[in-house]
């Protein structure tokens, strides 16, 4: 046995203080490792709902001391059955704040910062501060956003290998009723969320005319109230799924509709479920998925064991099945891929740049449109946009890119030669020659 001071983390010590032959590469066991995890590792938990509550508890008990949690929701009565950090008197309070407080009360020494806001409200700097991001979310949009943020820190070297110090690992959990998944995303190495977005089944969308004319199910009645009746009554006012009054209105209209057609089964929670596309959550599924995510987080950080490669599915619908699949990343992924490296002089105009892409052996791109950080620099079509962007053609690209020495640019056009041309969308890593090591800020200061 080791001579380390006995501590609350006695069981954790068995993983962190002893060598082994199943450990990950670069694992250096010892008390220093345990202390470094406490001191230097900052974990961001995104979401403080069913999965988020579990994640905070599990991570706090796994030796992480600096945690942050972000969530924009307030606690509702219907959360209390599984979001076990919340009590009846908490209803109406921000989830992130209450969850942080409760875990800090129970786990001594852990420090949790809460952020009651939308994930889009935080600047990129906020996210870049964390060692690892753990996701307990229920929406594809939110996952896609965090994924894009984490992947935006990733840089590649000239051989298209990811620079280790720019990799922001993510651990993503998700549950739907009896089903769940846990995955790890090492941008540049394992597939990112966007590489495998097809894994998420598209949301079921009923034809509007079925809703209007021939409803057959409770969900049809709810969607009628939500998509058709709402507009009819509240002309111009947008429906807000997070507003309980709006939800209540949709519910009562759905009940009337169901009575009219003799359809049973409309309830308030089904209404929430259908409108927000949420399948009822089960506390134990959350616990299982969270446990897997928390352990993977510990393994990624400490190297005490090899990690999941890279996608675990858990299905308890008929019997119990679990499976691990090693998905491969899309090398041409617009979000996590290296993109094609293009070196340019600062004097190159946008027109020249576009010509250059046509002759570039790896691209052979014609009819090119260019976009940079949400600004459309040039559009081939439609005519109205072509006209608006045409004057950019004779401006140096460096100026159009706000004099950023290296950055990502996306282009699309027709690739290939002759009759084998096909339309494509590519990511480019543009680097301007001769201004190495000069940062954006330095430039502004020196100008």
């Amino acid at each position, binding site marked *: 046995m080791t001579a380390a001071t006995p501590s609350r983390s006695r069981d954790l010590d068995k993983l962190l203080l002893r060598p082994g032959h199943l450990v990950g590469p670069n694992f250096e066991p010892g008390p220093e490792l345990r202390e470094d995890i406490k001191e230097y590792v900052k974990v961001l938990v995104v979401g403080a709902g069913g999965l988020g509550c579990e994640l905070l508890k599990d991570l706090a008990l796994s030796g992480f001391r600096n945690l942050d949690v972000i969530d924009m929701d307030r606690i509702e009565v219907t959360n209390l059955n599984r979001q076990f950090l919340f009590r009846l008197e908490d209803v109406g309070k921000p989830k992130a704040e209450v969850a942080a407080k409760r875990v800090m009360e129970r786990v001594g020494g852990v420090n949790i910062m809460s952020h009651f806001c939308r994930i889009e409200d935080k600047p990129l700097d906020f996210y870049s501060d964390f060692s690892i991001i753990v996701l307990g979310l229920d929406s594809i949009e939110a996952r896609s956003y965090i994924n894009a943020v984490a992947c935006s820190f990733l840089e590649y070297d000239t051989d298209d290998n990811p620079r280790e110090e720019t990799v922001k690992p993510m651990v993503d959990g998700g549950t739907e009723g009896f089903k769940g998944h846990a995955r790890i995303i090492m941008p540049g190495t394992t597939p990112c969320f966007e590489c495998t977005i097809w894994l998420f089944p598209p949301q079921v969308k009923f034809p509007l*005319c079925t809703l209007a004319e021939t409803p057959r199910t409770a969900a049809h009645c709810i969607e009628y109230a939500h998509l058709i009746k709402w507009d009819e009554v509240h002309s111009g006012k947008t429906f807000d799924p997070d507003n309980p009054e709006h939800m209540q209105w949709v519910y009562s209209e759905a009940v009337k509709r169901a009575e009219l057609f003799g359809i049973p089964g409309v309830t308030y929670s089904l209404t929430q479920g259908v409108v927000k596309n949420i399948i009822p959550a089960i506390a134990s599924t959350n616990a299982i998925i969270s446990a897997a995510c928390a352990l993977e987080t510990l393994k990624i950080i400490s190297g005490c064991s090899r990690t999941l490669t890279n996608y675990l599915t858990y299905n308890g619908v008929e019997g119990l099945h679990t499976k691990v699949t090693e998905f491969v990343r899309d090398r041409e992924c617009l979000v996590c891929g290296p993109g094609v490296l293009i070196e340019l002089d600062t004097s190159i105009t946008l027109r020249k740049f576009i010509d250059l892409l046509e002759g570039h052996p790896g691209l052979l791109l014609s009819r090119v449109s260019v976009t940079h950080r949400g600004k459309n620099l040039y559009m081939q079509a439609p005519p109205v946009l072509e006209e608006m962007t045409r004057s950019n053609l004779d401006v140096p690209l460096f100026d159009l890119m706000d004099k950023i020495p290296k950055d990502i640019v996306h282009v699309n056009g027709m690739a290939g030669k002759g009759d084998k041309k096909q339309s494509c969308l590519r990511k480019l890593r543009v680097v301007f020659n001769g201004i190495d090591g000069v940062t954006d800020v330095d430039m502004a200061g020196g100008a």
Partner: protein
Amino acid sequence: MIKLFKVKEKQRELAKNANGKGPVKKQSAGELRLHKDISELNLPKTCTISFPNGKDDLMNFEITIRPDDGYYLGGTFLFSFQVSSIYPHEPPKVKCKTKVYHPNIDLEGNVCLNILREDWKPVLNINTVIYGLYHLFTEPNYEDPLNHDAAAVLRENPKMFQTNVQKAMMGGYVGQTYFQRCM
């Protein structure tokens, strides 16, 4: 990775505020795909596109359709498109901004077009949707009604349907409903 975090954390303490990267507008994969769709648009002569928020917001745009054939010849119909950040995983949200007497478009502007709902697939694009909308005007159908009354009239009395459409497009009442002129 712990070694790395340790080094990075120490570096950060040293370099605090030395290198403040401001918030940068994030471009979603949906936006990029839409950028491609838009730059490859090949609109029929009867359709035009406009961007009310300028050239850098492609996620919200408007399509104007002026049918050159059928019941709606001579009318001008405006549609708004709202595209989500996970496009094309999700179809665009389309509304008809012009009040129209049409079996497949209700008075609130909801449109019953299969590829906007149950038959949407990520391989489809904005061009397909615009052609779909255009076809609603050349071939309105009473089998997928959103405006129940209009559908019934089209089915039972196409002549009267024609008259009603004209009345509505010229600006006037059809039954209890007033339509603004759109010719």
